[in-house]
């Protein structure tokens, strides 16, 4: 598909969105609360969060498939909140693909164009483009039931793309595919979205998927956005312990800032002092020290370092995970398989070294559930 076919990308601004579901006897359960998110034109943002946190609800509200109580949805500054679904020009790729079983692949993709009464020649050209873009040129005459899961998924994408939507929404589109295919298709999706430049919001609860696909990730928790940032920032500088824990394993250690310099602070944790680059507005003096398992290394025990005993070892092929008890805390250390020649045994005393500048400091209250 050539860029000549695409409309200029739009900015999406969601502000103060509240949505709840009506239950029996007048009760209602909140699903989305005070949700704020802005997507730059052409940006690919992922909503990441645990099951039931409201991801699907946000998408369906954007697509016009759900009513909501409060908030505003703006596309390039124009409100679409009151438009019915069929007037929103928002493409939604469903988790189960929702291909029309009674139409061929071609007719599925052509559906939106036919509704707009595009001339037949135009329809055929556009559908051919879209099918080519997802690598399914040969499959036009087939029925959806005659395709594999991955192929169906790509038809669903082509069907959403062909109408040149102002916004593309994906609801866990890869969750029905096997692990290998998932990796392959997500790369294709990313390439496709980049080449089209359509603003996209993507829902998943798979952190790898979110990390590899997104320009930015919005981590959701209980109907709210907890943090929006680039994947590296989410991983390395999570705003809360929840975010940190959701995108990977993390050691949360109590610590104290004992000295502040011009461009560095000294933090004490596990009875050990670490230098850390100073950031403006850094918390203190009590802090929560977040250290990813790979930010720690096992070394020969010696003076001036935290020491402990290995309590458990888990070999995971390309890496090994250690649980080490240091005083009253247990820390997790992950080493790549090739990093160590001599095997460590359970019960062995070890020393811990911090990888330089790899820890992150949070105010202690960021670790409590909100």
């Amino acid at each position, binding site marked *: 598909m050539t860029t000549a076919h695409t409309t200029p990308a739009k900015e999406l601004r969601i502000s103060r969105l509240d949505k709840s579901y009506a239950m029996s006897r007048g009760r209602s359960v909140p699903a989305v609360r005070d949700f704020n998110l802005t997507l730059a034109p052409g940006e690919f943002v992922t909503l990441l969060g645990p099951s039931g946190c409201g991801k699907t609800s946000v998408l369906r509200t954007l697509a016009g498939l759900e009513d909501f109580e409060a908030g505003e949805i703006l596309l390039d500054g124009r409100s679409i909140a009151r438009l019915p679904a069929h007037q929103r*020009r928002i*493409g939604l790729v469903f988790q189960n693909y929702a291909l*029309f079983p009674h139409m061929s692949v071609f007719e599925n993709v052509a559906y939106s164009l036919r509704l707009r009464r595009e001339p037949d020649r135009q329809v055929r050209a556009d559908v051919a483009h879209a099918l080519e873009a997802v690598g399914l040129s040969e499959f036009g005459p087939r029925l959806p039931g005659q395709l594999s899961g991955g192929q169906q998924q790509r038809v669903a994408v082509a069907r959403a793309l062909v109408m040149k939507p102002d916004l593309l929404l994906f609801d866990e589109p890869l969750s029905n595919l096997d692990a290998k295919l998932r990796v392959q298709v997500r790369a294709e999706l990313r390439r496709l979205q980049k080449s089209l430049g359509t603003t996209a919001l993507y829902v998943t609860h798979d952190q790898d998927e979110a990390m590899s696909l997104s320009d930015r990730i919005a981590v959701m928790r209980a109907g709210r956005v907890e943090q929006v940032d680039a994947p590296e920032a989410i991983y390395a500088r999570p705003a809360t312990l929840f975010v940190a824990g959701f995108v990977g394993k993390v050691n949360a250690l109590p610590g104290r800032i004992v000295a502040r310099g011009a461009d560095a602070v000294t933090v004490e944790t596990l009875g050990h002092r670490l230098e850390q680059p100073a950031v403006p507005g850094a918390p203190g003096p009590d802090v929560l020290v977040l250290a990813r398992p790979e930010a720690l290394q096992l070394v020969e025990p010696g003076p001036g370092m935290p020491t402990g005993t290995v309590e458990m070892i888990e070999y995971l092929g390309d890496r090994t995970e250690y649980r080490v008890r240091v005083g009253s805390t247990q820390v997790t250390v992950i080493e790549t398989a090739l990093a160590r020649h001599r095997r460590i045994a359970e019960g062995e005393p070890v020393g811990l070294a911090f990888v330089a500048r790899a820890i992150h400091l949070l105010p202690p209250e960021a670790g409590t559930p909100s």
Partner: protein
Amino acid sequence: MADAVALPGGAQEKIGRGWGLLLLYPVLAAFVLLFVAYPVAELFSRAVMVDGKPTLAVLGKLVADPFSRKVFWNTLLLGAVVAVLGTVIATAFAYAMTRVAIPLKGMWHFLALLPTISPPILMALGLILLYGRRGLVTHELLGIQTTALYGFRGLVLAQLISYFPFAYLLMLNLFRGLDASLEEAASTLGANAWQVLRTVSLRLLMPGLAGSVLLLFSYSFADLGNPLLLGGDFPVMSSQIYQSIIGLYDIPQGACLALLLTLPAVLMFFAHKQLSARTAFATVGAKGSSRHRLVRHRGARAAALAFVGLVSLVIVLQYMTIIAGATTQLFGINYTITGKHLVAALTKSRGALLDTFTLAVVSSAVSVVLGLLIAYFVARTELPGRSWLDFVANLPLAIPGTVIGLGFALAFSGPPIVLTGTAAIIVIAFSVRSLPYGIRSGVAALDQLHRSLDEASTTMGATGGQTLWRVLVPLVRPALLAGMVFSFTRSVTTLSAVIFVVSPHWSLVTPTILSQMDRGDVGEAAALSLMVVVMVLLVVHGVPHLLGRDWREAR
């Protein structure tokens, strides 16, 4: 759950030890042969045998006779119009109920289903009182004296009201079952509500629509009450069969007509069966959603409400008229309020009410027990001939009630088995007609059970019979009771299946209503109809209440 360790000998062992239950298999087979196959065969043999010699003369004469040909085409025409119009109404009604935000849905649903628990003959009665020669609307309000109701138009109207609810139930379940995400996908792709309906929902429901057409077709074919009361100069097959037998006492001709009526009916039935097998694909899968978004568009809501309200109004008018007819001296002539018809219904016709109730209860139990056993043999054993048993036992679904009733009357009026005038012939006719539903509820009941459950019990040392009683029956009771209620309703409201087998000893309500109307006793007919509706309503709504929550949820 206990690990079911396979016993040596496997299935054979299992069947061998359930010999007690197996003894019932030949008994069941004999019952089905004797009371389903034999009467129908006897009826058809009367059509092609005269004085013990095979002949096609009667059939030939009938086919050549222009009047008979007209009757045949009339039947098809009426069936086609009712089938198509009824499907349109049922589909629109079901769409309004499942996809449009309209108030009072529970009430509309209840009203739409009222005709399914009333004798169809009640519709004819209501229509006559409202729109007949001295009808409330035609004569009193419009001041015209017209017979326009009698004939094609009246029949269409009466059959639509009587039978569209069955199609509505079918379409309702199909609309509910459609995968909501397909309709949502269509709307995100730019389709408005009408386009979604036209290009997605209705396309997916195509087999269901065709199924509804065939269903209504067969109901129209089988209807006897409405053609008898409203037919006028538009004779159809069922009423002609009645005339041949009761009026002319021409059994060969009646039998031939019955044969000619059965052929298209059976064809439709098998076409319908084929289609229902296909509808299954269109319904929601494991990953789909069945939470459908409701249309909020003001115009659409107003239109849907107006439509649903209008259809309900027509139905309500029928029942109000029946009530009025039952409580006035002579509806159409003298509108003085009186309780005498209601009293008469409970005194003079008490025998008919009690007989109907008793016989219908007994036969609903019979059909459900037989249905469960047949379902068990068909689904859980490898016995030879079980698919034939299933086929024959299900035939009463396809064969019009008039044909079954006439077959009974002919087959059991002489040797080898004489049942004329007994309660048994009525109970058996009821049971045979309900047997397919009994089987269906039996299949549903058995399907609910995990197979391992009955295997576990068998390996624990129970015989097949004990398995059925101890383990299965308590778990399947809800489905069986639902089957009984359904079968009861069907028996109480049928006219066609019993009109040829009633006797002075055992009177039934529907033939009684018919003869009351023949005599011009509309008040008594209305009062008795009302009693029937009340009786069925009490059973349909009362039984679940008596049995408690779990039963209603199981439905």
